[in-house]
């Protein structure tokens, strides 16, 4: 059990709250950076995919987990980022141009959705974002000159300082760096007035207004930041895939992202990473497991969504706070070992809340 003695308020503003945090996160980052020394190409590729998922999930978490706006269309931002990146690289620009353009165009897409979407919530918002992603997918299918239409489009490798990134471990490190920067940006927002306003809008739009928060502005901001991060993830997804077709960016991808952050733990940055690892491991596991099973079972169409669905339902039924919630419980069990009480995480009775303001 750790007792923290705080001597000034500044300590609460630090990202790492104590030496233990610094040590473990430092170690984690060290391990992540040295992974290419240990793992072979195949697993580095798998790890890259997990990092890209994490980046996309981070984007979705900003708008859904922290601001409470469910988006069923985040695949659209991945698509915008992916195609923009690929197009600029194809024109001979370096990644220094292509990546920011991917983020910027995706951001503009986010703004386009957000301005009408900020007036909606719940199911209407979900449908509006879904519609947006269908439009984007459709566009990608028809803009032959830019996206190659349904025939698809080859993606050039990333280019930095005139150096082309061919190796999978190089791409892995590139994604890792950008992911760390994006995560730090999100953590900064969360410890600032904007992040608190996002959480306020999520938990009670009415009282956030009474405190001077403009929910529209906050939602538009959240959508824009979210789209930028997801767009960057899309750009890297393009490199990972090396070949883009519009079908990649269908509704299933959006649902998978949503599933990921719910499984990981909605409303936490940790949840993004837990979710990404889980989905990554599950995908790899399912594809390995499928080969191991007799074809009559493993070859069944729809077996993957089935397994995903079962896992999602069980998590929501048994651990609504996601993997991260479960981890917090295990950690406090260890910290308080002999005196841990199960009741400490029992959900308390919630007080009456009505839609009306009286």
């Amino acid at each position, binding site marked *: 059990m750790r007792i923290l003695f705080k001597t000034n308020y500044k300590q609460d503003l630090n990202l790492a709250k104590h030496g233990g945090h610094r040590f473990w996160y430092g170690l984690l980052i060290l391990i992540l950076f040295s992974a290419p020394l240990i793992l072979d190409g195949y697993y580095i590729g798998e790890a890259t995919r997990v990092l890209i998922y994490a980046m996309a999930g981070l984007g979705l978490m900003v708008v859904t987990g922290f601001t409470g706006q469910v988006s069923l269309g985040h695949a659209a931002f991945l698509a915008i980022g992916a195609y923009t990146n690929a197009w600029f690289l194809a024109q001979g620009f370096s990644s220094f141009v292509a990546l920011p353009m991917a983020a910027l165009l995706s951001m503009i897409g986010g703004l386009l959705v957000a301005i009408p979407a900020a007036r909606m919530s719940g199911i209407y918002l979900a449908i509006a974002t879904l519609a947006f992603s269908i439009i984007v997918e459709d566009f990608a299918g028809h803009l032959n000159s830019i996206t190659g239409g349904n025939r698809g489009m080859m993606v050039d490798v990333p280019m930095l300082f005139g150096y082309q990134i061919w190796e999978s471990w190089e791409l892995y490190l590139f994604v890792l760096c950008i992911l760390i920067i994006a995560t730090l940006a999100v953590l900064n927002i969360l410890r*600032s007035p904007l992040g608190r306003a996002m959480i306020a809008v999520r938990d*009670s739009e009415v009282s956030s207004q009474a405190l001077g928060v403009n929910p529209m502005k906050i939602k538009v901001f959240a959508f824009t930041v979210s789209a930028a991060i997801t767009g960057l993830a899309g750009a890297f997804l393009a490199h990972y895939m090396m070949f883009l077709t519009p079908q990649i960016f269908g509704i299933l991808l959006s649902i998978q992202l949503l599933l990921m952050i719910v499984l990981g733990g909605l409303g936490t940055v940790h949840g993004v990473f837990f979710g990404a690892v889980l989905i990554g491991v599950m995908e790899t596991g399912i594809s390995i497991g499928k080969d191991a099973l007799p074809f009559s079972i493993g070859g069944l169409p729809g077996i993957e969504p089935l397994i995903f669905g079962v896992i999602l339902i069980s998590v929501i039924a048994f651990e609504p706070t996601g993997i991260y919630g479960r981890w917090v419980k295990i950690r406090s069990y260890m910290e308080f070992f002999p005196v841990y009480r199960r009741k400490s995480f029992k959900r308390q009775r*919630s007080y009456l809340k009505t839609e009306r*303001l009286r």
Partner: protein
Amino acid sequence: MSFLEIENLSISFGGVKAVDDVSFAVEEGSVYAIIGPNGAGKSTIFNLLSRFYEPLSGQLNFAGNDLLELGAKDIARLGIARTFQNLELFEHASVLQNLLVGRHVHNTQSWWRQLLFTGSVVEAELEHRRKVEEVIDFLELAHYRNQIISGLPYGVRKKIELARALCIEPKLLLLDEPSSGLNPEETEEMGFWIEDIRRDLNMTVVLIEHDMSLVAEVSDRVLAIVNGKVAAEGDHAFVQSHPDVVSAYLGDAQ
């Protein structure tokens, strides 16, 4: 002109006049109580002041500002803070985060500075924290500082909502039934705090309240609302013994 002036305010919901031609004025530095039976339209007056509802007719004036020209999000910036009858806290955030949202109107940092968490943001955050800690000390909430709202008892939540409103450093504080759900000791404590808020923090207070001893203890003037209309206005002894008010409460009890 008074500090807060409400003139001929009316609103109806589906043909039912919830507030019907209500006028009253609140002087700066006073404590003003609104009483009335359930469903009289008291909370609706607050929701009109917060600009959550559009009135059918009437004028709302606060310190020389026409509230009807503003939206719900602009009211706090004028220096009007409020609590809600059914509590509207940010359930999945800590007490500290809830109170810091109360500092939102005092934020001057641009979004990109917040994204980079620059030195000026750090300075501003420390200043907000100091202000919030003053309120935490004032309402004796130190014990709960880092706890998540959703696990806290009702009486504490009530105090946190009051604390969050105080963090705005408002000039006018609207309290919707501050004592409901509190036990007698907590209610007495609430009475002391309301007096302190007026005396030490120089805030004007308007409160909706059912507990008549609390009303008698803290308020300078009392307004009784019955069926959306003003039944009586004056000091609490006058209002409480007014025949229309008495019959409304007796009628309510039958």
